[in-house]
């Protein structure tokens, strides 16, 4: 899932300066799962904003609405009914949701409440970790199911740098991705596979070529 976390409240208040009625828009997708922008967090955010603005002598009216998903035009349309007198939408979705709202409501000012962090998963309650670098050309078959592109601080494709010690990366308290790769390949009897020199990556398949598209002619519905 896409993992996100709330921006500091002060930053959000700053982006809502001068607004008197704000629609706080939640998302029932990934950000609800990672407890950042679902219905519950929308309620908490809206009341925190109202309280802060009340204290500042600039009361704020909030409207709360959580869509099934903000990254789907079908659900985004539903928000239209709630925009009466609204100056601004505060999106509690990931960056995709914020942009979808901005695209669908060209006359509306839309600001983000979250920082979108990464594609990852829940490790334990309250801890999420990145797992996929969205590089566009998966190397997991070469690396035993552990991604060096995103889990190695240097995205090394040919083994650990000199800073790997006792299983740890020198940069963070995280595990060294290459230690994990090594351990797995060894236990599966595939160490010799790691002696092959991995070719340089084609980064044009990653973010470097501008926004990427996936086109599937077979599932397109031509009107």
């Amino acid at each position, binding site marked *: 899932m896409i993992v996100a976390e709330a921006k500091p409240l002060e930053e959000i208040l700053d982006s809502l300066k001068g607004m008197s009625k704000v629609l706080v828009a939640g998302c029932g997708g990934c950000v609800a799962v990672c407890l950042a922008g679902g219905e519950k967090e929308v309620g908490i955010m809206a009341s925190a904003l109202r309280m802060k603005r009340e204290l500042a002598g600039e009361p704020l009216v909030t409207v709360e609405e959580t869509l099934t998903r903000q990254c789907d035009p079908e659900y985004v349309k539903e928000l239209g009914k709630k925009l009466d007198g609204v100056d601004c939408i505060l999106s509690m979705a990931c960056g995709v949701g914020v942009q979808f709202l901005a695209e669908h409501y060209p006359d509306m000012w839309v600001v983000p409440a979250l920082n979108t962090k990464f594609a990852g998963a829940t490790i334990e309650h309250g801890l999420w970790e990145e797992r996929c670098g969205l590089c566009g050309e998966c190397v997991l078959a070469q690396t035993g199911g552990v991604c060096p592109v995103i889990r190695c601080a*240097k995205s*090394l494709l*040919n*083994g*650990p740098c000199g*800073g790997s010690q006792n299983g740890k990366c020198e940069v963070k308290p995280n595990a060294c991705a290459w230690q994990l790769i090594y351990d797995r390949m060894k236990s599966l009897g595939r*160490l010799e596979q790691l002696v092959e020199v991995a070719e*340089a*990556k084609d980064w044009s398949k990653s973010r470097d070529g501008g926004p990427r598209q996936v086109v599937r002619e077979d599932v397109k519905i031509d009107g």
Partner: protein
Amino acid sequence: MAEEKSKLQRLLEQGEFVVSGEIGPPKSAAGDGVRHHTEELKPYVDAMNLTDNQTAIVRLSSIAAGIHVMAAGGEPIIQMTCRDRNRIALQSDLLGAYSLGVRNVLCLSGDHQSFGNHQAAKNVFDLDSIQLIKTVRDMRDKKAFHSGEAIKKDEPRFFIGAVANPFADPFEFRVLRLEKKIRAGAQFIQTQCIFDMERFEKFMDLARNRGLHEQAYIMAGVMPIKNAKVAKYMQKNVSGMLVPDGIVERLQKAEDQTAEGVQICIEQIQQLKSIPGVRGVHIMAVAWEEIIPTIVKGAGLLPRPQ
């Protein structure tokens, strides 16, 4: 362009036990310090590494520093890391360095930017060190850029170096990684500073078992330690460096810790010289370049061959 073998390559091919040193370029736009160190060191070392923004701290570029070394009559080994440049900039700098007369290049990943003075920087790592080695080799042997496009004339013909760290983990993979570097085109290897002699000997055993000592010139890295405090700091804070307690204790007990540090380094060199497959030493006297002559002399490595 005339074929011109580097002095380092020539001496290694002649079977000389080679000595290299290291000069850290300054955090300023002046080259006189590098030239001064070169003058001081050139009778004692066969070549000098110029580090590439080591520990991710902005310094005078390694290529520019190498030009200062040459101007002062020394032989440079340009370090080139993958942290700050993509494949376009790396190849461009290789062309530039060669055009200025540089013949030795040492390819490394590069220290992570979080250790340096620009922690908010974006790292590049478009290529990793092994892919960089292969790129330098292909430019020379295939006369082709990384993309495959032909270099129509005057291709750079570098003597290619790489590093190996026998003290990082996973230990067994360190030898395989060395093998990968050699397969990719590394001709000489400089190791991380060796303090744990037992582990290094084990590493060399494994390397010899795979015949690696015959496929590349392995130069053992050493570092003189000024005092017990420095040894303790390195023991605790530098990843990928193993400093045995015995060395810390020996320094602590010494009356003159600095002299003892030099003596330890000299003994290490003598020990390393006897390990089969070790073809030279690389002396990393970080911010203490002036001690190198004493060490080389003490280790009986004079006079240097020409």
